[in-house]
């Protein structure tokens, strides 16, 4: 009886630990998404329309490509700082189950950039900032809540499950979680990384197009 009770307690304890670790890393990746999205929404629109910093920069030898790359670099730095602090806190709370967790830091940066690129293209394309409300309410918050952050995607009904699998956030959450829990496999990690890099590249191309249309012609 005592043994049964003890094994039950161990089970309950480990269950809670893994659950906590899963949710904690889910929130880490989701925070990266929110930072990446926010930093490329209002600040980009402000620099193009309100304060016109980008116009001033283009009057110097800087080109449109430099503006985009520079902004993404700044976002990457911010993501690395926030992710680093968050990972240290996670380590203190004991939810990192593997030394591979150090790789969660670059993956967090990847998740943030996968959002930052496309969103900066959208910010340059939008006419007014009301669009951001819709973007956050109908894009960011549903992704934050339904992309495997708080519960597995398999709980979702069918069309929504496939949509969730297609989001960069789900790929990022899975990538980060594999590292912090120590369940990473090479093929899966590479697939997630490639998918996130695809989003970053696509965002860069799109941003370049919308920035040029807004700032140059």
């Amino acid at each position: 009886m005592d043994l049964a009770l003890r094994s039950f307690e161990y089970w309950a304890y480990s269950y809670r630990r893994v659950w906590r670790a899963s949710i904690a890393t889910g929130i880490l990746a989701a925070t990266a998404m929110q930072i990446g999205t926010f930093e490329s929404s209002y600040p980009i629109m402000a620099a193009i329309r309100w304060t016109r910093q980008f116009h001033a920069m283009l009057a110097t030898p800087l080109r449109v490509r430099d503006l985009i790359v520079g902004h993404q670099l700044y976002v990457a730095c911010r993501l690395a700082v926030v992710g680093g602090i968050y990972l240290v806190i996670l380590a203190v709370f004991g939810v990192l189950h593997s030394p591979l967790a150090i790789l969660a830091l670059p993956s967090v940066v990847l998740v943030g950039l996968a959002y930052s690129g496309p969103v900066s293209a959208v910010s340059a394309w939008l006419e007014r900032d009301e669009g951001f409300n819709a973007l956050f309410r109908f894009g960011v918050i549903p992704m934050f809540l339904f992309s495997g952050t708080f519960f597995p995607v398999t709980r979702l009904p069918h069309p929504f499950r496939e949509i969730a699998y297609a989001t960069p956030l789900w790929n990022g959450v899975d990538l980060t979680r594999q590292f912090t829990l120590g369940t990473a496999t090479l093929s899966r990690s590479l697939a997630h990384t490639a998918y996130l890099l695809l989003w970053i590249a696509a965002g860069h191309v799109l941003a370049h197009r919308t920035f040029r249309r807004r700032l140059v012609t």
Partner: protein
Amino acid sequence: VTAFAVSRTRGHLLFERNLMVYRRTWLTLISGFFEPIFYLFSLGLGLGHFIGDVHGVSYAAYIAPALLASSAMNGAVYDGMTNVFWKLRYGKVYDAMLATPMGPTDVAVGETAWAQFRGLLYATGFVITVAALGLVESWWGVLALPAAVVVGFGFAGMAIGTSTFIRSWQDFDTVQLVQLPMFLFRHLLPALGVSAGDPVARALLAALPRDDARPLVHDRHGRAGEPRERRLPAGPRPLRDVARPAANGRASAHLARGSSPWAIVDSNHGPPPYQSGALTN
């Protein structure tokens, strides 16, 4: 009280002005309604599957009133803080208004009334949705609406007052620092017991002012009879947990077998412990 105050002042003019402005940006107004709904679906119906029943009702039904109060808080704070700050500092809307017979009191009353109207709009939509999902167990649920308005009133006044002290957009991060813990710890996490056992978290919970709001809203749903201790069960004691590295090893072993991290959470290991009462935290 607000109706009285509005009738005595010119606050209704500002209310009317906001109504006209939002006629053009209705998407912003409508979209706020979806936020608590998304949270309800994700936390209540998604996460709730793994939590089971809390105090005899489903987790979705348990957090629904909390989400209602939270959406009243968030609506009032966003409207009273960001919008008022923008109008005050950048839009210079109030400067223009003060050139008319309107005074500062009219502005304050009008903005508070508007924030409450917006909160009531969201609360009504939320209660209807929740009722359609079958999560309201009593007709007293209708009274959750005035309760949410009272919550919104408290926060709207606080938010508009605070927005006059705010110097720049960076100061909003400080506001978030206060608002977010209230949203998370006060309502949603005690049921999970994520941190209710830590002395720090316990002190934090005791210090948060929204203690009154949840019983208020829950009462309307007819199930806040339990004493406070039962609604906030004692959580894990950090020292005892730290002293059990073996359990940690077991979790890692499970993961090393290549199982999905969620598999250990899912209910294929017999009855989940949280339903047996042994692990209510």
